């Protein structure tokens, strides 16, 4: 067995922590000289060509164009003389493990990683703090996404594991009208619990996410510990159907702004950026069709389609509800007995408008 030389991600400048692999200038199997140009590497400051650390044959390209890798990650292997495939494989595995261990020392905040899992052929994107006991899954509302929990996840993560998915047709998950109903979303959550081997979880659901949480508790009671519901659908029958249908079809900044202000007691919370982000989401191919269909599963004839109050009564449940909620009125829980309901001085977005109260309960 001859010599093996590692080609690794260079560190160009003090601030470089990662680089993007662009095109390889040489092919697998090519002979290379020391100092010969091998592969184009791009950082946020500079694009340059990495030179060969030695001479031999570029026997294996490990990093493919487009990959973003940390400094010192293995990009390829140059060999001299005879090559034993098995030895090469273990050499690559060792080098990658060493680079991963080095990178782990400077691991990014796990909540900044846009993770993915596959469910029924769709890509589901989610956030996960990874560490901690008592996993809590946060379920967003109609037209929302995992970033709606921006004031909650980081606050809760030191005390317990938190996860937040984008439902199908929401956020960064695959758009699929076929998979857009509260029941389908409940199945997705149940599959997520299984795939990530979370065991029993607590659920916090906002608005439609509350309805999804109730459905998970009904369909898979063994997987659910406690429920926290924020202005949930599925309790009572009143709903602002005009908002739901309007949001599904709105296609301009002005239309969306007029709708978004209904979410908050303090209308100033609706920023330009929030409306711009909503518009970007609404314009993704297929989103409007999926939301129109989803809206149809949430209400009919101006009333909510399903009342799951009995589920809330059978599982440990805490409900927060804003007194100024214009989407799902707080009067929806007037008839609900045996469940702890706390009314707050806010609108529909308790997890944003009254984050401290909600976080304290969830800690």
């Amino acid at each position: 067995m001859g010599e093996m030389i590692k080609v690794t991600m260079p560190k160009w400048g003090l601030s470089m922590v990662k680089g993007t692999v662009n095109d390889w200038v040489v092919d697998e199997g090519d002979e290379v000289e020391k100092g010969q140009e091998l592969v184009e590497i791009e950082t946020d400051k500079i694009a340059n060509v990495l030179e060969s650390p030695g001479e031999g044959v570029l026997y294996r390209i490990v990093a493919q164009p487009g990959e973003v890798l940390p400094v010192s990650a293995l990009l390829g292997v140059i060999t001299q003389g005879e090559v034993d495939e098995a030895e090469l494989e273990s050499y690559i595995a060792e080098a990658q493990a060493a680079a991963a261990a080095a990178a782990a020392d400077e691991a990014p905040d796990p909540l900044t990683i846009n993770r993915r899992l596959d469910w029924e052929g769709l890509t589901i994107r989610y956030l996960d703090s990874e560490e901690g006991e008592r996993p809590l899954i946060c379920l967003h509302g109609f037209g929302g996404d995992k970033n709606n929990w921006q004031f909650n996840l980081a606050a809760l993560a030191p005390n317990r594991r938190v996860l937040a998915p984008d439902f199908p047709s929401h956020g960064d998950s695959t758009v699929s009208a076929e998979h857009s109903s509260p029941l389908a979303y409940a199945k997705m959550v149940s599959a997520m619990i299984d795939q990530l081997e979370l065991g029993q979880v607590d659920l916090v659901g906002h608005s439609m996410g509350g309805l999804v949480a109730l459905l998970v508790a009904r369909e898979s009671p063994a997987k659910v510990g406690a429920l926290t519901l924020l202005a949930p659908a599925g309790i009572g029958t009143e709903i602002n159907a005009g908002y739901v249908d309007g949001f599904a079809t709105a296609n301009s900044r002005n239309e969306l702004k007029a709708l978004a202000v209904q979410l908050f007691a303090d209308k100033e919370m609706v920023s330009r950026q929030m409306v711009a982000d909503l518009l970007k989401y609404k314009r993704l191919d297929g989103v409007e069709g999926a939301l129109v269909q989803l809206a149809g599963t949430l209400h009919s004839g101006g009333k909510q389609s399903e009342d799951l109050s009995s589920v809330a009564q059978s599982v440990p449940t805490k409900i927060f509800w804003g007194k100024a909620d214009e989407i799902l009125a707080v009067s929806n829980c007037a008839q609900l007995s045996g469940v702890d309901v706390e009314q707050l001085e806010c609108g529909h977005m308790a997890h944003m408008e009254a984050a401290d109260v909600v976080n304290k309960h969830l800690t």
Partner: protein
Amino acid sequence: MARELTFKDAINEALAQEMARDETVIAMGEDNVGGMGAEGEIDAWGGVLGVTKGLHAKVGDRIMDTPITESAFIGAAAGAAACGMRPVAELMFIDFMGVCFDQIFNQAAKFKYMFGGKAETPLVVRTMIGAGLRAASQHSQCLYPIFTHIPGLKVVIPSTPYDAKGLMIQSIRDNDPVIFCEHKSLYGLKGEVPEGSYAIPFNEANVVREGGDVTVVAIGMMVHKALEAATALAKEGIQCEVIDPRTTSPLDLDTIIESVENTGRLVVVDESNPRCSMAADISAQVTEQAFSSLKGPVRMVTAPHCPPPFSDVLEDLYIPSPEKIAEAVRTLK
């Protein structure tokens, strides 16, 4: 957290996604594949600055290299569009458009009108605009006002990677001929771009920055210069509202006038030469339709009325700068 792409890659992704979605979408141009037919050279180049690089591997011969015959392949693309295809033809530099004016002005733009509305021409002509690359006056002009002048054409000038992808997708899906202008100095600009397909409707200006003192309308690369000027002016207590029309035909005049009704002051920034420019056009339309809202004259910040110079020093002076924009804004306060 969201994924970032360069302006160039955003256009490439729009083409790849639309070509995957709809097999009537085809692409052609000089070196679009890059050495097609030459051994070992397949998919090598991808246009002058590599915008279509890698597409041949994804869509095969639905992307084609053409001879250096703009009049022939732009005409062919217009004809293909009238016969049910959705061609995206790249005409390297807008400066070269002169050799195929007839195909664009008299054929593609007129089909719908000449044939009683029965013919549709879903043609996209991609082309590079703008100065700053030391490429002299036949490769550096901003000639979009000429195309804006022609009824039947739509003219698109994106300023961000997000807009570039969404407007390219809309251009391909649109049933009229579109001149899609890519400022070459923007190709390396990075920004958040969703992975999925999305279309940004034409005739929708983007309010890039809100402010109550002066409305600054800026196009293409000039949006970034205007934003720089706005940041500097904010420190002096002047709040600019920066508006990017994104399409000059159709032009979303409503958004501009709505802003002027609030600020009473307008500066239009355009990298084109001043005579018959977008700056002149927007200035005239606002003056005619919202005269009573204006508290002062409309200011135009444009290139001077001369070809883009080859001298580095002169070219830098030729392009409207944030300083010149700020200066124009200050004259109104």
